[in-house]
């Protein structure tokens, strides 16, 4: 990595340096953790904010999109926190175990911690950091500047472990909420460890007020043990002016299954970066991502899938519906390491543009260092098919409804990847609501 020497720092970069200098003393963790934070911040400072010449960020120029660093969110007051009770409504009524993270801090008193299944442990990240546990260092995302910023500044989040062999029936719902008030920045770090053979569904929602240009930087590390199974569903539904940067690192053991579904509907600027490592033999990873964008939204989904062990399989499907002047970005890289023979990996990115000003940038890549593999990728970008629309209208279906039906069919393919019926129905409802707002 060439640490670029830069003479000019942007206002936001200076802002982050000030933030870090001011917060360093008060951030949780002892000397060892402080050293990790400082090291991470230095890595950020050496690179600065990513911009169009930063390879992994070429379509999302944060130097331009992120004008200033907001102050760290203060601990929210009781009134603000009570608003948070209503959050995560998309999945209301499904009986999920709700864990609330309000303005960047885990709120146990608002969370449903009663009757935790034996073998399931939930802790606040601040607690782990207080005990000097080395929970901050990142692996695949370590070199990324905004992930480094997360390591430097993360103050809280949730740490979940599921003991080997424990099958958790009730999904856990991480409800991330930013409450009103002055626009602020939150940095959270969460972690999930599934012991061998454990099974869990983890749901995440992210939301906040439309009027505030708040900033969210979340990171989640996931370790799926041998033969364990994790279904992960994330809805990025931030407020209309918000910035949301999310880093996910997942590593799968032998025979493990990791199924990821992401839906981006909210936020002005969104970056979802996912780093998935198929570390154990015969592991399976499915990453399905959908973006429904309108107005001037900019949403970037960047995926790095690393096949390390032999006989692993991955499917990556990205679908974007882009209206108005919005922009969808998809970058996907599948790497097959020399030892990963019999890898079966396929990636597909499709964008549906609903207006002439809508933009999609798709860049799939394969890097293959093994010879006995099956890999492929493809992309398509296009408008709604007029012929299909006419066929529907010729049967009496009004234009908007015909379009909605076709959009629904297009997005349906990724939603169908979600295993649980109740979650799939809720996600379908999210899509229908989005379509309703269109007309």
């Amino acid at each position, binding site marked *: 990595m060439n640490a670029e020497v830069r003479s000019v720092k942007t206002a936001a970069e200076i802002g982050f340096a000030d933030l870090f200098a001011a917060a360093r003393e008060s951030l949780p963790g002892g000397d060892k953790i402080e050293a990790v934070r400082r090291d991470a911040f230095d890595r950020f400072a050496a690179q600065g904010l990513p911009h169009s010449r930063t390879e992994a960020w070429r379509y999302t120029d944060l130097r331009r999109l992120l004008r200033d660093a907001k102050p760290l969110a203060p601990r929210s007051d009781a009134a603000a926190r009570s608003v948070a009770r209503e959050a995560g409504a998309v999945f209301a009524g499904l009986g999920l175990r709700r864990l609330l993270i309000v303005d960047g801090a885990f709120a146990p008193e608002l969370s449903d911690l009663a009757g935790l299944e034996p073998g399931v442990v939930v802790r606040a990240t601040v607690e782990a950091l207080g005990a000097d546990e080395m929970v901050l260092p990142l692996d695949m995302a370590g070199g990324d500047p905004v992930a480094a910023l997360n390591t430097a500044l993360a103050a809280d989040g949730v740490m979940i472990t599921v003991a080997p062999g424990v099958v958790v029936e009730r999904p856990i719902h991480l409800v991330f909420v930013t409450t009103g008030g002055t626009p602020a920045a939150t940095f959270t770090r969460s972690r999930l460890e599934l012991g061998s053979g454990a099974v869990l569904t983890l749901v995440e929602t992210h939301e906040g007020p439309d009027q505030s240009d708040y900033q969210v930087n979340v990171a989640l590390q996931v370790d799926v043990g041998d033969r364990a199974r994790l279904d992960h569903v994330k809805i990025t539904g931030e407020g209309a002016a918000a910035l949301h940067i999310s880093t996910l690192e997942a590593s799968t053991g032998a025979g493990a299954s990791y199924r990821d579904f992401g839906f981006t509907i909210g936020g002005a600027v969104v970056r979802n970066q996912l780093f998935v490592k198929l570390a154990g033999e015969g592991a399976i990873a499915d990453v399905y991502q959908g973006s429904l964008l309108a107005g001037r939204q900019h949403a970037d989904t960047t995926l790095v899938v690393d096949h390390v062990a032999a006989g692993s399989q991955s499917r990556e499907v990205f679908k974007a519906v882009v209206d108005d002047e919005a922009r969808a970005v998809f970058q996907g890289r599948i790497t097959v390491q020399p030892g990963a023979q019999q890898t079966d990996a396929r990636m597909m990115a499709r964008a549906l543009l609903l207006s002439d000003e809508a933009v999609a940038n798709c860049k799939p890549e394969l890097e293959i260092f093994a010879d006995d593999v099956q890999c492929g990728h493809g992309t398509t970008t296009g408008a709604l098919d007029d012929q299909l629309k006419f066929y529907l209208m010729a049967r009496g279906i009004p234009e908007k409804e015909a379009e909605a039906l076709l959009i629904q069919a297009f997005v349906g*393919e990724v939603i169908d990847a979600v295993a649980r019926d109740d979650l799939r129905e809720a996600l379908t409802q999210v899509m229908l609501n989005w379509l309703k707002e269109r007309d």
Partner: protein
Amino acid sequence: MTALLDIRGLKAEIDGRQILNGLDLAVNKGEIHAIMGPNGAGKSTLSYVLSGKPGYEITGGEVFFNGEDLLAMDPDERAAKGLFLAFQYPLEIPGVATLTFLRTALNAQRKKRGEEELSSPDVLKRVRELAKQLSIDPEMLKRPLNVGFSGGEKKRNETLQMALLEPKLCVLDETDSGLDIDALRIVADGVNRLRAADRGMIVITHYQRLLDYIVPDVVHVLAAGRIVKTGGKDLALELEATGYAQYQSEAA
């Protein structure tokens, strides 16, 4: 009596090319009209212009449907008023289940006509019954519309849609193409069940064969964008013997 469909001097272009050249045709309730003609005569174009497919420019003439200006209506409005086109090449729509499509179409039409929408079980019941009549495997209704259907299955599916939607005017474009004799019989029986005193039909076909099964009241020859000859059902047999060569030269 106002005709069900009254086409007067219709002229239409696509991509700057004139296809319909002053076409006249009137269809009354209860009548079946066959339109025959050589390839490229403009038969499909006529069916598309009637159903409101975008891309055609109407450069002359008028079309009245039950006395109303058909050309002023959007395609969905025409459908709700009772116009149905059975496509020569039915389209495949991945991700839209056949049954969902049928229910959406039926209820959209009912809604537009101010009729009460039908519940999913009610629609299912009707569709099942029609599927049985047309020898359509009920499993097919769960599959995405026309995706992976054979040519015959697509045509039977078109016939099912027509029977479900109960249109006032059915326009069948080359419904016989790609059908073997058994499938042809099934589809023709389906069409014949829809014959009714208050319903008209236009059966477009290149071959006489279909007309053995769906017997028309009137036969027209369409060549170079106009109706050039009209007669009884014997005209179809005549055409079978002589071919279209005389009309092609006549039109040129």
